[in-house]
């Protein structure tokens, strides 16, 4: 069942440039377990789009099946949503994005939905560089069916069932990098400071933007032996650096140490300011990102932050040369060649 949040709000809630408060970006009350990492991610999404002043109805949120895929009900209640079939969200977003290039497409998925049943579609949507934000709420287990290991569970990780997972984990950012994704990041549901600017940067990126978010399952996979628990993630998180996001319409005012920061202008004019912790890592070099991921895997760390971004990304619409006017706004006048042309075709077939 869905339960609506009471309408009453404090009258002095801060408004964004469009005059919307954060409440305008909320959804129904979450029915996920208390303390679920997914709810924090929903909160980060709400904060990011509110601060970016995006009109709620210009966002379409789509998901597959699972706990993660239920979460779009709990944010952006004024946006159209689509809870599709298991592992197939990417294809539905692809079609939707072909129909109307003017909306923001927010895909929400989980580790079962993406790394198992949906691994094929995940790879192909990344490869086509569809202009979308793809958030994986990654808890290493199947929640709705009561805690089975998923394909992102680390080898040796022990969930509530008490058995160590014998298989190696699928690293979604590593696959995305290999397959040609143009924006790859990882974060943690418990680190809003990092997650919110990453979501903003992903929204500004033109092309496929993956954020793999470690999001502990409090009910089935928050045990001492799990590598996707709150404690384990906090202890083993290692960031590539920090990301500050400056929207297009704001001036950059804060001063940073120029040796350690780098400003990158996004396609929509926004700027992301990256502060690196390690000079050997370059987020604009795919090889560097792949190496960093492999190194962190070896050392048992969870590498977070912006891992890779292609500043010259060309999205699927560019590749297909689709018209600037969204295809769903065209009528018979633009689309139908008419009877005279048809008569010529008939003539050629006689």
């Amino acid at each position: 069942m869905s339960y609506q949040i009471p309408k009453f709000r404090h009258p002095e809630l801060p408004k964004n440039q469009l005059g919307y408060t954060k409440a305008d970006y909320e959804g129904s009350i979450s029915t996920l377990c208390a303390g679920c990492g997914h709810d924090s991610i929903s909160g980060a999404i709400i904060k990011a789009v509110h601060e970016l002043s995006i009109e709620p109805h210009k966002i379409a949120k789509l998901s597959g099946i699972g706990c993660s895929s239920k979460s779009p009900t709990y944010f952006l209640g004024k946006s159209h949503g689509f809870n599709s079939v298991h592992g197939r969200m990417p294809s539905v977003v692809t079609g939707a994005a072909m129909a109307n290039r003017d909306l923001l497409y927010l895909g929400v998925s989980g580790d079962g939905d993406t790394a198992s049943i949906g691994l094929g579609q995940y790879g192909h949507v990344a490869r086509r560089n569809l202009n979308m934000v793809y958030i994986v709420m990654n808890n290493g287990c199947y929640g709705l069916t009561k805690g089975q290991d998923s394909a992102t569970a680390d080898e040796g990780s022990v969930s509530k069932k008490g058995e160590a997972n014998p298989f190696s984990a699928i690293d979604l950012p590593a696959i995305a990098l290999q397959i040609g994704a143009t924006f790859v990041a990882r974060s943690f549901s418990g680190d809003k400071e990092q997650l919110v600017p990453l979501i903003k940067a992903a929204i500004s990126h033109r092309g496929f933007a993956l954020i793999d978010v470690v999001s502990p399952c409090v009910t089935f996979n928050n045990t001492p032996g799990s590598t996707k628990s709150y404690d384990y993630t906090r202890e083993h998180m290692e960031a590539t650096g920090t990301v500050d996001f400056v929207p297009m319409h704001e001036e950059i005012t804060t001063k940073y140490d120029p040796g350690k920061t780098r400003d990158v202008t996004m396609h929509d004019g926004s700027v992301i300011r990256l502060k690196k912790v390690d000079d050997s890592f370059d987020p604009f070099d795919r090889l560097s990102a792949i190496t960093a991921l492999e190194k962190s895997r070896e050392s048992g760390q969870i590498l977070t932050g912006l891992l890779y971004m292609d500043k010259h990304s060309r999205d699927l619409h560019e590749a297909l040369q689709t018209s600037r006017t969204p295809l769903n706004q065209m009528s018979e006048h633009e689309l139908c060649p008419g009877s005279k042309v048809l008569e010529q075709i008939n003539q050629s077939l006689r």
Partner: protein
Amino acid sequence: MNASVAPISAVNDFVIKFANVNGTGSASANNLFAKALFRMGLPVSPKNIFPSNIQGLPTWYEVRVSEKGYLGRRGGVDIMLSVNPQSMADDIREVEPGGYFIYDNTKALDLRLHRADITFIGIPLTAICNEQYKDPRQRQLFKNVIYVGALAALLDMDFKVLSGLVSDQFKGKEKLILPNIAALELGHQYAKEHFNCPISIRVETRDAVGDSILLDGNTALGLGAVYGGATVAAWYPITPSTSVVDAFDKYAKRMRINAGTGEHNYAIVQAEDELAAIGMVIGASWNGARAFTATSGPGISLMSEFLGLAYFAEIPTVLIDVQRAGPSTGMPTRTQQSDVLSAAYASHGDTKQVLLFPSSPAECFEFAADCFDLAERLQTPIILMTDLDLGMNDNMSPPLKWDDNRAYDRGKVLSEEDLDAMERFGRYLDVDGDAICYRTYPGTHPTKGAFFTRGTSRDEYAIYTEKGEEYEKNMLRLMRKWETIKEYVPEPILVPASQPTDLGVIFYGTSESSTLEALDYLADEGVNIDGMRVRSFPFNDDVEAFIEQHDRVFVVEQNRDAQLRTLLMAEFEFGPDKLKSVLCFDGTPISARNIRKQIKQQLPGSNVTPFQRRFRRAQGGAA
């Protein structure tokens, strides 16, 4: 030329079959032959019979010429043109007594294959080519053209029509015109010099085709999608449906690219599989674009889960199924109508899908364009059921027609103004009483009209609920919508017998021409049967009335399990004894002779047991 049986004597009424090796360029020469007859004003129905292979295996091209306009397969071959030693023994056996076997006699015929009751005509095609051309590729290609030239003499075709056709076909590649005409002349001259031309089977120019066109169904579908306003096509390659999207691509490139900006008013995405293809169509349609995919049987199986979602979430979806012989890979290059049941009830749970059955390229074009109106009006998947025979063969067809005053029916979609004027939007509220609800596209209104689309049950306001009564209410509304759908889908076409009769026959799709021809033969023998061509599922009430009005109704289909008959029994609750099956499932199009034979076996008073029951008895089971 000598034969123990009198040679078949026919003017404008015969079947000729070409036995070739695939990958040798024979298709275009054979096509040239068929099209030339068509231009001489003769109804033709060429059919490719080809292997699932790129190069080297036997392939056949059967052309029926019928001044009376019978376009289905007749059965039997009067003239075999053989250039493939691999299949020669079988090809010789297939010729009707009194028929002709025309072959390449560069290598002498194996005398063991000789038949006294047919006429052998040997033309040294390879020798002529080897003498005439140096390039091996030319030797290969022109061999085909040379035999067309020889046929022109043997059958008394109008040579000017042939050479005119060559000029038309190579427009833009003028260099190729003269060598091709020279090759035609070479064959023509050889036949004139060595045989008594024409032979006893020949053609005469007529005006029996009117303004008809010669076109394959898949091309008509692709063109229909362009005219119907499709902007998104998502697909995965599969025989025999691939050429549908190829045709859409071809015509869209010609008619949908802005000459000034180079922008495309369409998007074609080659998906990673059929699951993704239908997912993309559903996503695009949900977002207000007209989208479609094309596939064949295995694709329908893969798309089934999504089809359940589209049915339940009520998302317009256009799907073209060009059927082939299954199950599994079955015979991917052979025709069948064997996806009827799996498409009609595609998906888990209680689902019913709308099917359309076109039977000509003109109807493919019409239905393809109509599909988008129907899908958006009815907010449900529309599955256009064609098959390899219609899809990949050139079929003689009435010309394609378009009414320039036609506006697309975009169905019940609310605009920003509509939403402003209403209190509360309910996605699944039956406002008009026809069980079709209003929908909104994403991005329409800042505060109203947004809803959550899901495959999970929900109430009339699209709010998630697991209450049994809400679920049931929704499922009952979908049943009422099924009744509304009957008012929109194409109605059946009645073909009454010339005299009142208790016998009826139901047929659909590519069984049309052969069935109508069989009905003519039967009427000549005094057996009158009313015909009805079903064009859609759900069945219109007229179908029920037709069955009720007749004591015995034959159902003609190209599958083993009598799938449409099962649908008729399931939907109308008729007993199995009333509906008699006429079936063909060997992968070739059903022939008129076959239909006539099976109907005669099952006429009242006949003691021949129907195939299904006979089979069970033979297996020792209950009758």
